[in-house]
């Protein structure tokens, strides 16, 4: 009798759990049979014909890309893309749009289960895993089909995605450096009598310069005591790309914008200390939001909400125009560091060809085309011309008559994560020659001495996993100045060394030395 009752309870509970749990949970082994490694056309031998096959049965390319949100006009964009590719390539495209929210889970599932996928954006942090798991193919094998990419990118950047001789994918056309900047609201900035020229040349070789920023914060805090002076999710100390060549993960870096070849622990440098100290001052004086270390809303969101004076970011040539459209406020950008081109920044995300591709040659041809065709880049970024955007008198893209951001059926403004935004239109508000400005900017910046080197993280994967947890524990509290840098930095470094920081630094130095030797 009792046993029966228990059984009944058990069943009831299980059923309830099943119903309530729905489709969540159980992320266990998702990989089904992945034995179907499709026999692709082998790499072209010697003088292979690289021309596009316009006659045969059209191949369908599965193209995964990131979007800001699901657009109502997605279907129309798909049709327009297919029409374009059928005309130019004799290929069909199965568009797989993903938002950042779903991307990491979904792409992991698609890759590990060998689902149909030809081209997708891949992030550098996963590369070691993608290579060992054989999710992606070495693009060196398809070089004859990728001459367009080479033309667009230049030889130096073309190979930036190389990990231990394996070309993982191609960077996107965008800014090549990530200097730190402070975005401030222009109305208040002007009202208090400041000029952007007063803030020129603030660089980490003279820490006294940063006092100007602190003084600015103090003035704003006094004039608007209820306003949060600095907010957002970015701190100077976490803006690691702005100060060093981070060699993929900041655990062992090349200091001084990568102008050295000795790998050191950045968290022990005076630079890191000074940056933390600055934030400590801002925090203790109440310039930073008291909730800044737990806040997950970006500075743009905070500024748009109307009670935030400034936030930190990596700036680029058109930051002011971009932030105007994102926050609704005119802004000035105070530059706080120089720009440096490093592998980790350039190849942070690349377009790769998945091993699951049924015809890798056709995929390569498509990828090549995607880097050279402006119409395609406009389509995936701004949608269908005439419906979601039109060209204005300056040659920029803008909303058609009667369409607003709220009613537009497809609008991403994600040019930085698409193959080649430079080939397409810039959004209204940008200078007509914006893409030329980008090119000048990219050519003018420093280049790290290790540019082109990418760490193979496989030998130190365990240490890096453990270091990630230490860094995530301390980064916000130390870098936002919640904790006293005089004691907290030491504590963090101890924890890092205990997690194997020295091993990672040594491995980086070893791989870097080998790479440098191979360069000469």
């Amino acid at each position, binding site marked *: *009798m*009792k*046993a029966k*009752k*228990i059984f009944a*309870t*058990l069943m*009831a*509970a299980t059923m*309830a759990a099943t119903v*309530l749990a729905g489709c969540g949970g159980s992320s*266990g*082994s998702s*990989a089904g*049979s*992945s*034995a179907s*490694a499709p026999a692709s056309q082998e790499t072209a031998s010697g003088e292979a014909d690289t021309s596009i096959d316009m006659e045969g049965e059209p191949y369908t390319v599965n193209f995964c890309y990131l979007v800001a949100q699901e657009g109502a006009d997605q279907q129309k964009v798909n049709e327009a893309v297919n029409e374009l590719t059928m005309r130019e390539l004799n290929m069909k495209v199965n568009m797989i749009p993903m938002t950042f929210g779903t991307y990491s889970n979904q792409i*992991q599932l698609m*890759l*590990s289960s*060998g689902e149909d996928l030809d081209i997708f954006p891949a992030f550098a*942090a*996963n*590369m*070691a*895993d993608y290579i*060992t*798991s*054989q*999710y992606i193919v070495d693009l060196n094998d398809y070089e004859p089909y990728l001459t367009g990419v080479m033309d667009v990118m230049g030889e130096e950047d073309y190979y930036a995605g190389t990990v231990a001789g394996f070309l993982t994918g191609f960077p996107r056309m965008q800014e090549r450096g990530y200097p730190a900047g402070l975005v401030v609201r222009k109305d208040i900035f002007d009202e208090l009598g400041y000029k952007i020229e007063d803030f020129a040349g603030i660089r980490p070789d003279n820490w006294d310069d940063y006092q100007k920023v602190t003084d600015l914060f103090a003035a704003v805090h006094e004039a608007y005591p209820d306003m*949060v002076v600095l907010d957002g999710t970015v701190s100077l100390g976490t803006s690691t790309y702005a100060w060093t060549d981070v060699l993929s*993960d900041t655990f062992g870096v090349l200091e001084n914008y990568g102008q050295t070849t000795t790998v050191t622990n950045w968290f022990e440098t005076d630079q890191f200390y000074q940056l933390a100290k600055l934030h400590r001052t801002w925090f203790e004086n109440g310039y930073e*939001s*008291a*909730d800044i*270390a*737990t806040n*997950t809303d970006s500075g743009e969101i905070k500024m748009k909400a109307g009670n935030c004076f400034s936030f930190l970011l990596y700036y680029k040539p058109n930051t002011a125009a971009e932030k105007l459209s994102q926050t609704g406020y005119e802004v000035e950008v105070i530059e706080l560091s120089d720009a440096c081109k490093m592998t980790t920044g350039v190849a942070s995300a690349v377009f790769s060809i998945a*091993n*699951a591709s049924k015809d890798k040659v056709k995929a390569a041809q498509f990828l090549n085309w995607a880097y050279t065709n402006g119409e395609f880049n406009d389509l995936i970024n701004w949608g269908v011309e005439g419906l979601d955007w039109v060209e204005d008198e300056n040659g920029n893209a803008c909303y058609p008559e009667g369409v607003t951001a709220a009613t537009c059926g497809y609008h991403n403004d994600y040019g930085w994560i698409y193959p080649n935004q430079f080939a397409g239109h810039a959004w209204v508000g940008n200078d007509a020659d914006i893409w030329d400005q980008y090119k000048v900017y990219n050519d003018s910046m420093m280049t790290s001495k290790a540019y082109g080197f990418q760490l193979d*993280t496989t030998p130190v*994967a*365990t240490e*890096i*996993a*453990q270091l*990630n*947890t230490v860094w*995530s*524990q*301390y*980064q*916000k*509290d130390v870098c936002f100045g*919640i*904790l006293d840098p005089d004691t907290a930095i030491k504590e963090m470094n101890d*924890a890092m060394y*205990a*997690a194997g920081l020295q091993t990672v630094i040594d491995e980086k130095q070893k791989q870097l030395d080998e790479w440098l030797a191979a360069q000469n």
Partner: protein
Amino acid sequence: MKQEKKKKLTPAQYKQFIPLYIMMIPGLLYLLVNNYIPMTGIVVAFKKYNVNDGIYGSPWNGFKNFEYLLTSNDAFTIIRNTFLYNVAFIIVNNIVGIILAIMICDVAHKSLKKLYQSSILLPFLVSIVVTSYIVFAFLSHENGMFNAFLTSHGQEKIFWYNTPKYWPFILILVNCWKGVGYGTLIYIATVSGIDGTFYEAAALDGANKWQQITNITLPFLIPSVITLLLMSIGRIFYSDFGLFYQIPQNSGTLFPVTNTIDTYVYRALISSGGIGRSSAAGVFQSVVGFTLVCFSNWIVSRISPDNAIF
């Protein structure tokens, strides 16, 4: 009754159950396909997985996938946190759940009873992210209700998200608020299933309300309690990721008291993960959970054999 149980059934008697067995087939098939066949995928935790060779063909990797989890300096902290929080959750949620169930069953007004029952269950259906913002509304350093209350009474603000000592209580409280409705539902079902004549008889004998509860309701509840207990013990090395990640707003200072196996794995594998290492964590949790279930069932069967599940 015991004797009746031991008596063998004749084939003819078996026959009458055949429809029942047929009805069971779809369920069993589902269990087999969904729960048992995938279990063989467990080997991936011991493999250096690559997609071309597949799960079974990939080269073996020994215990390498487990290294990052078990050799870490935090290994002790995360295992301790996961274990102790779950013990606390089990105890608190069961006690509160039973109390609520008994109280709700005594509500005479039918529609009020339904109202209470639903409102206790409601938090269970609220997304953990929403919950985290509800908690944030109380605890925010800048605009939180608690800090507003403290400052208006001339007290110093408390930096909740940087003070680890409060968090064990906050988490247990939040988890109870959120999860208790589910257990309560099952207890209500049991309590309302108790034959009313027991209470009538007890009342005639002069038993007061408290005596009725301790002598009738609780003994009837014990089988359900044990079932639920064993089920939660099986998951004692799993933690509710949302609870430990979202509710403390991922605040670093709180890690010593909020870091559990699941949040640790998430943070460690946020870059360069790999299917092998994430499975390793799952295997570790399941194996320990399974062992604990067998162990606790063995204890239960020692104390009161009738209540053991198997």
